[in-house]
């Protein structure tokens, strides 16, 4: 009897440790980000860093203005939204509302496969195929631009948006559709006036999580955006988003140098951006469930 209970407790502790390990990692990463990122602001004023227009970390004296990097990330992410929202939400609507069982059985796994392609493959594809094509078609000096990055990121974020939006549509109670059909609404009216408004906040969550995916993506943007740390004036010029800056420069800095701290500070900012996105998404999806009477 006692032995059985001991065994039971042992299992509890053992698996509990696994469950809480993610908390340990989260805390650890946060501490390191703060510890290594904050020293930058001791050397340079916080505002001058965030709003500084020039990122010349290897010049003498170096400049660590992050505005070009932040704006680059912003542009590329917004551009990606224009790709992943229509594609992701559109395919979710099609898969959930219009596709028959057979099409659904093909489309859903296809979207999931799209999500499982490593980002380096997207980057490679963007660099070797898409960038030269764009350069050719639009007559650009270089093919690696914010636009190229947006396009690739948008395609990458599409599966995220699609599968979460599809879940949101699935949460809409069957009764809403029936009620709508029963007063003589057709499919399109039911979709636009009942189903989409009811799933609206769930779809917003999908979009925000897609954004969060786009803003944090590194390898692809490193390969396709060109890497020029200047404030972007057009979608068709090279940019250097925050993530690719870290990836490209971390290997060349001296540990403990100002440059090193600056890269961590970028990481810290990114961390906050995605944190805010995820909190907002969680908040909206919670309200969504309450609105549909699903509890938490």
């Amino acid at each position, binding site marked *: 009897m006692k032995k059985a209970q001991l065994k039971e407790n042992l299992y509890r502790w053992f698996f509990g440790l696994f469950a809480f390990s993610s908390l340990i990692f989260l805390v650890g990463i946060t501490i390191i980000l703060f510890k290594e990122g904050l020293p930058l602001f001791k050397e340079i004023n916080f505002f001058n860093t965030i709003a500084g227009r020039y990122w010349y970390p290897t010049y003498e004296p170096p400049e660590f203005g992050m505005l070009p990097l932040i704006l680059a990330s912003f542009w590329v992410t917004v551009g990606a939204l224009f790709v992943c929202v229509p594609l992701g939400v559109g395919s979710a609507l099609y898969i959930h509302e219009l596709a*028959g*069982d057979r099409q659904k059985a093909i489309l859903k796994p296809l979207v999931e496969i799209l999500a499982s392609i490593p980002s380096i493959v997207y980057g490679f594809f963007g660099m070797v195929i898409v960038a030269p094509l764009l350069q050719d078609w639009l007559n650009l000096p270089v093919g690696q631009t914010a636009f190229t990055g947006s396009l690739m990121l948008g395609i990458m974020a599409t599966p995220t948006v699609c599968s979460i939006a599809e879940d949101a549509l699935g949460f809409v*109670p069957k*009764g*809403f*559709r*029936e*009620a*709508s*059909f*029963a*007063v*003589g*609404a*057709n499919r399109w*009216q039911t979709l636009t*006036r*009942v189903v989409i*408004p*009811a799933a609206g906040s769930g779809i917003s969550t999908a979009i925000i999580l897609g954004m969060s995916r786009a803003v944090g993506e590194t390898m692809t943007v490193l390969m396709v955006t060109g890497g020029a740390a200047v404030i972007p004036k057009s979608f068709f010029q090279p940019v250097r988003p925050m993530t690719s800056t870290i990836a490209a420069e971390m290997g060349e800095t001296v540990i403990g140098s100002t440059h090193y701290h600056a890269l961590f500070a970028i990481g810290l900012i990114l961390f906050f951006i995605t944190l805010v996105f995820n909190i907002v998404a969680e908040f909206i999806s919670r309200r969504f469930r309450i*609105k*549909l*009477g699903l509890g938490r």
Partner: protein
Amino acid sequence: MADKIRMKLENVNFFYADTQALYEINLDIYQNKVTAIIGPSGCGKSTLIKLLNRMNELIPNARCEGNIYLDGHDIYDPKVDVVDVRRRIGMVFQKPNPFPKSIFDNVAYGLYINGVKDRHYINYKVEKSLKDATLWKEVSDRLHSSALQLSGGQQQRLCIARTLAVEPEVVLMDEPASALDPTSTAKIEELIQELKEKYTIVIVTHNMQQAARISDYTLFLMLGKMIEYDVTNKIFTNPSKKITEDYITGRFG
């Protein structure tokens, strides 16, 4: 039976994929009468009522044979617009299913989607439908608050108002009171009595007392087959089949 026939079912068979759910249903539904469909769980009551406004078409792999007429016109005729059928034959569901919109917008929904633009007419119609559904007094001061704040019974009357707003000729009710408390149920039953002055009503119920109280005609279904269809009074006092008697006296079911 001198009552006017409004809907007519002829040799209706219905299949879910390979399983037959209804067998050779022949039924006349009379104008301004309440027709109740009773029978044990799984006998096909809900399936049958869904056929009457083609809601069964939302079920994949289902198949319907036979003819169903409204005023002599086959509602399954390929030339007939299903949207039109559903507007003329409204439906209230088992579980109250108001949209997550305001009370006003719930009732006005059918008008909006049928392209009604006239604000005055919409206001008039919403008020009228809510009055007809005996809900107006309870909600007239909060038409623009969410319908989900209403109690279950109020929600169901709201759903009835939503159905009435598009002026259907026949109203189908699929166990409309089964999810409600006794007080709300009494209100719904009272409402059905009032509604039959203007509408033809078909109601599915698993509650035999309810069928006896509110209906004029009763159909007893079992395992997808019509056992008996007659004036309610006769079914409940002097059924012609032994099995009907056994069911209504509670020997099984």
